[in-house]
């Protein structure tokens, strides 16, 4: 397939993923999904999976709280996966680029919610005042879809289209040992993601479970599905013991 069409497909993927975040929310905007899909489009699913996993771990715990917009993983994943595929499956340049690239999407989303979506909102409220149903749908659904198609697809398309040249230029400039070092750093990035997750969950008396999980996987090599089964069991046990406690409290109150 022509690389122009491949790049266009990547641009459309960025739009679909961003719109999924605002619409059906099937979580296809997460790197773990976008990585392999981009890999599929570019003809290298394995590299896509590797990029998807690494970037997913980087952004594991970014939670959209209130109106603060976190770093954007969509364009970052698609473009950096294209970089990795252009580098012949070497993920380190893609990984190094992923973090800076995530700022682009963040800026675009800030612009979106503070400029053109404000405009479509105002037009929509005018349609509401007229009682114009078609107008409401047009300004709430059709118009944002069209504008976002341009705003998210075009930059992604351009970046993917020129990715081979960018990556070649980077490989020429950056020494090999530095690229290896980035790979080593990428292995440690997971620690930041997991620490962020622990911080955002913030349940103080749950630390023993952290040790149990660590013990199960490090010493007994239980895989994640096995650990999930134990997690379900622990939740069930605490629900039952909570119920028992409440019942005995009620009994004491009755006596």
């Amino acid at each position, binding site marked *: 397939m022509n690389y122009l069409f491949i790049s266009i497909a990547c641009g459309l993927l960025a739009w679909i993923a961003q719109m999924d975040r605002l619409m059906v929310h099937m979580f296809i905007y997460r790197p773990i999904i976008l990585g392999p899909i981009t890999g599929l489009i570019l003809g290298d699913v394995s590299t896509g999976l590797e990029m998807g996993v690494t970037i997913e771990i980087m952004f594991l715990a970014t939670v959209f709280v209130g109106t603060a917009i976190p770093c954007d993983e969509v364009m970052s994943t698609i473009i950096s996966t294209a970089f990795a595929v252009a580098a012949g499956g070497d993920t380190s340049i893609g990984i190094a680029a992923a973090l800076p690239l995530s700022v682009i999407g963040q800026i675009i989303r800030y612009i979106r919610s503070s400029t053109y979506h404000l405009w479509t909102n105002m037009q929509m409220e005018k349609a509401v005042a007229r009682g114009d149903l078609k107008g409401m749908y047009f300004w709430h659904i059709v118009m944002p879809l069209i504008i976002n198609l341009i705003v998210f697809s075009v930059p992604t398309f351009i970046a993917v289209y020129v990715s081979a040249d960018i990556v070649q230029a980077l490989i020429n400039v950056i020494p090999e040992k530095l690229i290896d070092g980035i790979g080593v750093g990428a292995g440690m990035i997971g620690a930041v993601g997991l620490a962020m997750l622990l911080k955002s969950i913030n349940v103080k008396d749950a630390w023993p*479970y952290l040790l149990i999980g660590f013990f199960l996987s490090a010493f007994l090599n239980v895989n994640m599905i096995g650990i999930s089964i134990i997690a379900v069991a622990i939740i069930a046990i605490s629900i039952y013991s909570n119920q028992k406690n409440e019942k005995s409290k009620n009994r004491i109150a009755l006596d």
Partner: protein
Amino acid sequence: MEQKETAVKRITRKDLWKCFWSQMFFELGNGALKEEAPGFVTSMVPIIEKVYDSKEDKIEAYKRHTEYYLSEGRAAGLNVGIAAAMEERLALQRDIEPESINAVKSALMGPLAALGDSIIHGTFRPLFAGIACSLVIASGYKSVFGPIMFVVIMTAIGFLVRYYGTFLGYSKGTEIIDAIQNSGLVRNMTHLAGTAAYLLVGGFSVGLVTVKIPWEFKFEETVVSFQSMLDGLCPGLLSMLLIGLMYFLMTKKKISPTFLLFACLALGIIGKYAGFLG
């Protein structure tokens, strides 16, 4: 005659399904000023079109929902369901104040956002994503089973939350409001989800974080690698310590995660050049 008309205007399951599908556009077009208010308006279209007759009443009802609204998109389904029940009551019996609809919405959007953000985005999403990642790593970056499982489970959770929110919100609105506001439901659920998350994060630590020290010692003729000695004592020790260090820097020293991400990359480069990481 009047009885018959009321029966025609009652909200049926079919209307609630229409309302459910309208919510697919809930967060589309949200701007910084009113956030999800336009989505709330379009979600209410099937309900308002059904229960009101005159155009003036409909416009009045739509305008009501253009007030600021911000919650978690899926958890908000409960709010839409409750608003549907209240609009129906206002239209048919006229025994509630129109302002009370927005009052209930404003009272619920905070707790629902907290519940949705912490459970869907703060716990389930990272957990299933982490499981998907470790499945992909375990397959040697070959199998797409993990990602597919992630999409299927997360979509199912989103749809279930929205479905039960809309339908139960309509049928048992006030009971649910009481349950959310009075009991420790929100706190209990986040606590349980958090406990499970800690267990799973402990499990992720070995697979998702790799730190290796390439030092080697020579004892007479045999070469002993420092890393294999460490793994013999406690596998994954360095990964766990690194997570602990990052947690300490984030919570106690208030260092931003983005800075720490770059710091990790920098440490990897320095470690590679200096020979203490590899």
